[in-house]
Every structure is written in C-alpha cells, then in structure tokens.
C-alpha cells in the first residue's frame, strides 16, 4: 500500500512538473534560479563525472582489449569501447553520478525545507512549490543529463584510447578511426534519450522524496537515501527497457 502511494505521489509530481515546465521562463527570478540549477547539475558534477567516465573507459578498454588480443582483433578496440559507452555506459555512469551528486542534494535540500516549514510557507503565500522548487531542479536535470552523458562518452573514449595506446599497443589514430567508423547516429540518439529519461526520473524521485519528508532530521536522511536507491533501481530498469525497445 505504501509502495503504491509513493508511486502515485511521484507520478503526480512528474506530471505537475512537466505541465509547469514553461513557467521556468516566466520571470527574471525564475530564469536566474533555473540557471543556478543548470550550473549545479552540469558544471558542479563535472569533476566526479570526469573521473568516473575516464576510469569506466579505461576499464572497458582493458577488459575488452585483452579478449580482442587473443583473436588479434585489437583494431576493433575503439569501436567496442565507443559503442558500449555511447549505448549504455555513458548514460548509465552519468545517471549514477547525477543521482548520487545532484539527486541526493535535491532530496536533502527539499527535505530540510519541508521540516523547517519553508514549503508550507510557500503554500500559504500561494506560491506553488512544484513551480517554484521542483520545476527548475527537474528541468535542469532533463537538460543537463544528455550533455553530461555526451561528455562521459567523450572522456570514456579518450580513457579507452589511453589504455589502448599505452598497454595494448593500439595506435591512438587507429583507435579513434575504429571508434568513429562503427558508431551510428542511432546509438547516439538512443544514448542521449536514455540520459534524458534518467534525468527526468532522478529529478522527479528526488523532489518527491524531499517534499514528502517527515519526522525531522531522521526523515531527511531517509528521504536522501531513498532518492538515491530508487533512482539507481529506476536507471537500471529503464535502461534495460529502452535498450529492449530500440535494439531488438
């Protein structure tokens, strides 16, 4: 019963936020708030995303490269790394980083606001918390997640190239030419679509958990934890479903 209530609440937050997306451009203040959220979501997560995606690409290149070497097929290392990154690993790593860095912060911030009566204060002033708090945060994730995923892909591919050149004897130019020749536009679009969906899910789950916080500081901790766990699970499940739809 509790699970159904939570799903219902999260869905309501998502629908109300999507309907209110255009209001983010309504006034100078709301545009400024949105710009701050874009910065926090995009630029703020770059250090973590860079490290995660670099090592993801390096691990991928090492594991795949060692297997390819057994068959003297190292020339395909670039293609293997690029396709894996662009289709799955880049949106996945991006989703994980955003859920951990941004989603958790949103849940904690809104949870604290809830227990400090700030959200009730907005309601009494007839300011919609969805429009004022949820929309800039969710929309920033929707806009930035595909860009961050693309960045992940670039950095991961570079990481794979470094491993290929230094440990597997694959020339960097050869690696890049293999990478660019095999990847298709469809792969890029599906990867970016996944990231966009992940951004929407992370934002919605985090906002819903934050705004539903009860029982003081303990509740804030619980909401933060739940936002990360639920986002991770949703990223995995939706990632599979989108792959299933586009790659039968």
């Amino acid at each position, binding site marked *: 019963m509790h699970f159904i209530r939570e799903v219902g609440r999260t869905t309501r937050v998502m629908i109300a936020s999507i309907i209110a997306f255009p209001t983010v451009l309504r*006034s100078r*203040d709301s545009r400024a708030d949105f710009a701050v959220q874009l910065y926090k979501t995009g630029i703020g997560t770059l250090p973590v995303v860079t490290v995660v995606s670099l090592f993801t690409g390096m691990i991928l290149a090492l594991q795949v490269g060692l297997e390819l070497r057994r068959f003297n097929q190292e020339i395909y290392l670039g293609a293997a790394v690029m396709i894996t990154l662009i289709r799955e690993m880049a949106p996945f790593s991006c989703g994980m980083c955003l859920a951990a860095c941004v989603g958790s912060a949103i849940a904690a911030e809104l949870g604290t*606001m809830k227990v*400090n*009566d*700030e959200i*009730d*204060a907005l*309601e*009494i*002033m*007839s*300011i919609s918390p969805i429009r*004022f708090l949820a929309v800039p945060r969710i929309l920033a994730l929707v806009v930035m997640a595909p860009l961050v995923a693309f960045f992940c892909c670039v950095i991961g591919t570079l990481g794979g190239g470094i491993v290929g050149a230094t440990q597997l004897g694959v020339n960097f130019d050869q690696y890049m030419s293999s990478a660019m020749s095999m990847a298709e536009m469809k792969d890029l679009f599906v990867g970016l679509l996944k990231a966009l969906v992940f951004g929407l899910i992370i934002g919605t789950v985090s906002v819903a958990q934050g705004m539903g916080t009860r029982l003081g500081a303990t509740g804030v901790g619980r909401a933060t934890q739940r936002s990360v766990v639920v986002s991770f699970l949703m990223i995995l499940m939706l990632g599979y479903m989108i792959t299933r739809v586009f790659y039968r």
Partner: protein
Amino acid sequence: MSLISFENVVKEFDGRKVLDGLTFGVEKGEVFAIVGPSGTGKSVTLKHIVRLLTPDSGHVRVDGVDVAECSSRQLRKIRRRVGYLFQGGALLAWKTVEENVALPLKECDCLPDAQVAKRVAAALAAVELTDAAEKFPSEISGGMQKRAGLARAIVRESDVVLYDEPTSGLDPVTSVTINRLIKKLNQKLGITSVVVTHDLQGALMFADRILLLKDGKAVECSTPAEFAASDNKDVKDFLAAMKGEM
C-alpha cells in the same frame, strides 16, 4: 459573526485525538492568544485556518467561508488575506532577507519592481529590520529571522496574521520586542492576530483574549484580567505551572 471560527473541530493523528470538539471564535481586529501545555494542539489549530490541515469533522470558517470545503480560488483569496509566522521564520536560505520578504509580491502578485521595493522597505521598517535587508538568514539571529518572517507575513498587507510560537527559543529581551511588535502591528495596521504561545506573561500583556487549550478542548476563553482571576481549575493549574517555570 466572528472573522475566524472553529465549530466542534476534531482532528486525529494515528488514532490520537489532538483536537476534540474545539469551538471558539476570533473577532476582527483583536489579538487572540492560544496558550496551553505542549501537545495540546495549538499549532495544529493554527494550521487549520489556512488549510495546511483539514479537520476530520467540524468546521473552520474564515469570514464565513468553510476553509476545508472551499474551492482553490477561494482558498487563494483566504491565504491572500492571511500572513503566517512560523516558529523558525521559515525563510528561504538562499535568498536575502529582502528577497524573502519580496517573494510573495514577486511570485504571486507579480508587482512591478519599484512597488515591490517600496512595500518591502515599509515591511522591514515596520519590524525594525531595515539594516539586515541584504543579509542571508544564516547571517542573522533567531529573533531577527522571526522579525523577517513577520515582515514577509505583513508585506501583502494581510488583515490577519497567525503567529506560531513567535517567542520560542528567544531571550527575554527579544521576546518582549516581538510581543511589542505584535501589539504595535495590531494597533497601527489593525491586523487581527492569532498567537500560539507558551509565553503567558507576553500573552497577558498583548492579547485582547486568551484561550486555554487542554487535550484538544477549549478550557477557558476570556480577557487577560478574567483569565488571571479565573476560578477554573485547569486555568489555575496552568497559571501555577507557568509561575513555577518563571
């Protein structure tokens, strides 16, 4: 007809009756204090007036409109008339005092910048907080945060202000300042005030009438002089307990 009226209001949380048939009325222009021990439903009572909570049974009316039953448009109208000062001030941490006070004018009333600036300056002057306009909530004291919250509550020229424990956690000097401010706003602007408080001394000083709540019921509702001289056992016990505390 009372401006705000509670008629036989019952509210339960997890099977525990917090309000149990609560009935009282607040007249226009008066300062109405609600006192009582912790957990007797004082803040819950206040939240019913602006539909942050709805009664399980009974009616809460503001100017004759049933708050629980009214449309969202009517609710907006009621909330437009009511300012609410929360215990901690409930200021947004990432906005300055000035921006916090300007929030309802900009986000809800969509007033031009010049008018917003004028109204904000007047509200901050009314609570004697002009010097802290540029500061963030974390940079000012608890008492100043409450005054900033009060400025936000009156900036829309509300005719009713609800105070939830306005002096809790404050030193005696700041408490007196806040209590004087409540009285001053009532006298100067004619604001109807409903004040939930533990500060009985303050209530005796600024209130026109005092309501004592016990176990979610109204035990006594009278003027400060009548309250202090009441024969009611619960009032006597409460007064004795408060004297003991002081």
